């Protein structure tokens, strides 16, 4: 009946997705990606596991993914980018399309969007963790 178990499961899943997303960001920042195409594809997939459900939520669709709390993550992003939310959404959608097409030439501005998403997911993880400990 307590909420702990449900929150802990959600925390665990979101935290694992964030860990993989960040691992992929580290790889995509390096030069190794140009040599290892197979690994690049694998790492891109880890990024898309987080970005695709967010893109679906942004386009008012429902996502099937259990890997990320897309609805809450989008809420956090919306709060943080409120003044130019529509333009921000467009940039994000464009970036997801680009990565889905395996284009890994990520500009510094696009890297900041990826960091924004990861920070929002990190916030969701911290919120879940605090709720698990009864601190919210």
């Amino acid at each position: 009946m307590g909420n702990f178990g449900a929150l802990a499961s959600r925390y665990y899943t979101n935290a694992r997705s964030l860990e993989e997303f960040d691992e992929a960001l580290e790889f995509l920042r390096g030069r190794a990606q140009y040599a290892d195409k197979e690994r690049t594809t694998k790492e891109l997939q880890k990024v898309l596991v987080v970005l695709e459900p967010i893109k679906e939520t942004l386009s008012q669709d429902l996502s099937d993914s259990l890997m990320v709390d897309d609805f809450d993550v989008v809420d956090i992003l919306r709060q943080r980018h409120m003044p130019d939310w529509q333009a921000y959404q467009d940039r994000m959608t464009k970036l997801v399309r680009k990565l889905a097409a395996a284009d890994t030439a990520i500009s510094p501005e696009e890297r900041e969007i990826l960091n924004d998403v990861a920070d929002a997911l990190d916030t969701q993880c911290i919120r879940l963790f605090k709720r698990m400990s009864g601190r919210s």
Partner: protein
Amino acid sequence: MYSPFQANERTIVKEYLEALIVEQINRAVILKGLIDQPLKSPYLGQLSERCNNILDDQIGLLNHLRTQLAAQESDLRWIHRKVRMAITNISVVEYYGISSLRYQTDEVDFLNGLVFKIAQEISLPTNPPSVSCMSNNYFYFEPITRVIYVPQAECDFLLHLPDLYHEIGHSILISSAEGFAGPKLRVIAKAEEDIVSAVTQHFRSLIQEESRNLGPKEIPVIFARIHANWKSWLNEFLSDVFAILTLGPAFAWSHLHLVAKISDNVYQGSWLSNESHPANEARMRIMLHSLQLVGFENEADSIKTRWLQLTKTLDSPDAYYWQAYPDSLLSTIAKTFLEALKKAGISIVSQESISRDKPVGSIRTILSAAWEAFWSTKPEEYREWETMQIANLKKLIQLPQRMSAFSPS
């Protein structure tokens, strides 16, 4: 490189992050020292190893981040996030792992033995979770350390022990979602994917229907929020179904008993908030569906009668309730999960498997008999019976079981 920090800010942030990293490495090392003690129970060896591995991973990660920090073009946002993640993982081990290892009592030994025996009985295709009796909030499962938390006095009562099956259900769902899950667990993961697709399809249809009806704009938003909550609820529903399909009616009785004791609303408090648990009424309905699937129709009827008597004076559902928890969806979930558990080789409960004619020693027989005794005897007589059963159960679980579990075959 583009950076949200000015050059002088970068230096200050870097220095602070380095101090934070060193502090956390020291904390992890101290915690490792707390694990290094002789184990009283062989069942806790797995937990001890898991805690050590998590801490080693975090120390390795923090050292790697310290190296990254020194690089000219380091991504400070990325490093800060990774440090926070390491801190949380270290905290989880401290709060939900080491405390369990430092508190090794006879009760802990008994409960770990009990879960081990349950896992054998139901052919659980993964290592059973560890158990700690330090819960301050009924039963729950922590997925990183893989510990089930149980209230202190629970091992002297039988009526809520069925909840162990629900928590084992949580543990198998977590194991099945791992990248290295074996074929039996992958069947369970696939079923979960199919079920979430069915849930999404249901809510897509509701939203489309609302859009066609040109109703208030808020309604699709409410359905989207309910769908988002279902991602959390699904885990609870599947753990409920798992408990029913492996133990039988005793778990539904335990749920009814708990609702009678502490539920504040058997339907739903709010649709727009982030609710971690599904409504108790819907949970009971999926349990009844599951019971009917494995031949417990009469028991399902008896539980339903008691449930309606209990809940009719408590609350009533609002306008969205039946759309949020349609009977057809709950039934589909139960059927899909039953097929997956069968394919995974899990021993599904039957009338025969919990029959009192079975030889003494089956945990599910004892827990089922407890509920029969509870309903058919006077309270004092029941307690006398329960005390005797617990004593027998403790004899059954103690050393011989542990020795056989760990001796080479």
